[in-house]
Structure formats: structure tokens, C-alpha cells
């Protein structure tokens, strides 16, 4: 299985500021994703991070609010821009790896916006 780390593990931010979350994988992976999990709820896909091209965003998520970088096959960043309290969530990095294409998740970044 892939080992995924995220930084920071948690943060408390002021509204109007931006936070960049880093995701590092221990092996090269083609498919990398970013999810949001609001308090007490399920996971929602934000976007697919594509290496060498722009990320593919799901309905309701836009690049200006959640810019994503994917400079290589082991690393990606998600920025939460111009934050408001509604952005308080867990942000999770996920990758698909192995012969079966199993999807694994990082430990998450817990964000609280005041």
C-alpha cells in the first residue's frame, strides 16, 4: 500500500487568509486526489491532481478557490484561498496505487477558520 503524509496536520487560520496543504507519497502514482470532509460528514471529491497539467475540478469547486499543484508523481499541494469559517473541514489527499488500483488516504489536515 502507498504511504501518504500531509502537512500541516492541523491549523487554525483567520478568515481572508490562505493555507497551502502538502501531500507526499512514498512511491510514484499516476492518480492523486483531494477530498474534503466537513464535520460529521462523508468525503467529497474536490479535484483530481494531474501531473503536468491543470487539475480537474468537481462540480462546486473552482480553481480560484482551491488551486492545486502537481509538480511530479509523488507530490501535490492544495491551497484553500480567501478562507471563511465555512471552509473549516478536514482536507484529505488520496492516491490510487497497486495492480488493483486501490485508493488510499493520507491522515488529513484539520483546518479551523475563525
Amino acid at each position, binding site marked *: *500500500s502507498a504511504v501518504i503524509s500531509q502537512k500541516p496536520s492541523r491549523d487554525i487560520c483567520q478568515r481572508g487568509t490562505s493555507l497551502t496543504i502538502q501531500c507526499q507519497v512514498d512511491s510514484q502514482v499516476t492518480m492523486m*486526489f483531494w477530498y474534503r470532509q466537513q464535520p460529521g*460528514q462523508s468525503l*467529497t*471529491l474536490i479535484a483530481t491532481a494531474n501531473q503536468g497539467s491543470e487539475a480537474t475540478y468537481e462540480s462546486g469547486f473552482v480553481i480560484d478557490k482551491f488551486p492545486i499543484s502537481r509538480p511530479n508523481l509523488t507530490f501535490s499541494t492544495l491551497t484553500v484561498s480567501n478562507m471563511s469559517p465555512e471552509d473549516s473541514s478536514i482536507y484529505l489527499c488520496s492516491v490510487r496505487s497497486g495492480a488493483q488500483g*486501490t*485508493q488510499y488516504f493520507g491522515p488529513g489536515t484539520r483546518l479551523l477558520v475563525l
Partner: protein
Amino acid sequence: GESVGLHLPTLSVQEGDNSIINCAYSNSASDYFIWYKQESGKGPQFIIDIRSNMDKRQGQRVTVLLNKTVKHLSLQIAATQPGDSAVYFCAEMSGYALNFGKGTSLLVTP
């Protein structure tokens, strides 16, 4: 995907009993299903998966059953232990996207 609410369904079982967690999906084109376990403060952890050409798959103390006719998935945990207390999510894949269900909170009591 499914709509989500503010409160998770909760299943309370006694230690040593078997647990059954159910999940309904809506997309008949889904061909791959996964169960995840999420403990407090952690990311989802892969438990077991099943493809649509199967109706049952077993792992260590866990069994996943798939009924494509009624679009129903279940996770059975044998001899439930306190360490099994967590939120369990089913997820279905059609195309490239993995869509998650609402989640069920499993509480194991001594």
C-alpha cells in the same frame, strides 16, 4: 453519490458479537466497491474491496457481500473488538471517481 446529513447512523454491538453494516448505492454502472474504516482523528483506512463480478469476498474477520439486484453492499465483522469502534464508509467507483456513502458509526461496548 449519496446525499449526506449531519448525523451518522450508529450501530452499537457488544464485544464478541458479529456486526453487519449496510450500504445502498444508486449507480447501477458502478463496478468497484470499497469499505473504509475511519478512526477519530485519522484518515480513512482501506478494509476490503469487491468488484461487480463477485457477490462475496472474505478477509481477516471481515466479509463484504454485494447484491447488484437491489444495489446493496454490506460489511460483516466477526467477533467485534473494541478496536473496531470507528466510522465505516462504503464507496463505489464508476469511471474515475470514488463516491462515498454517508458512513455508519460502530460502537463496541464491553
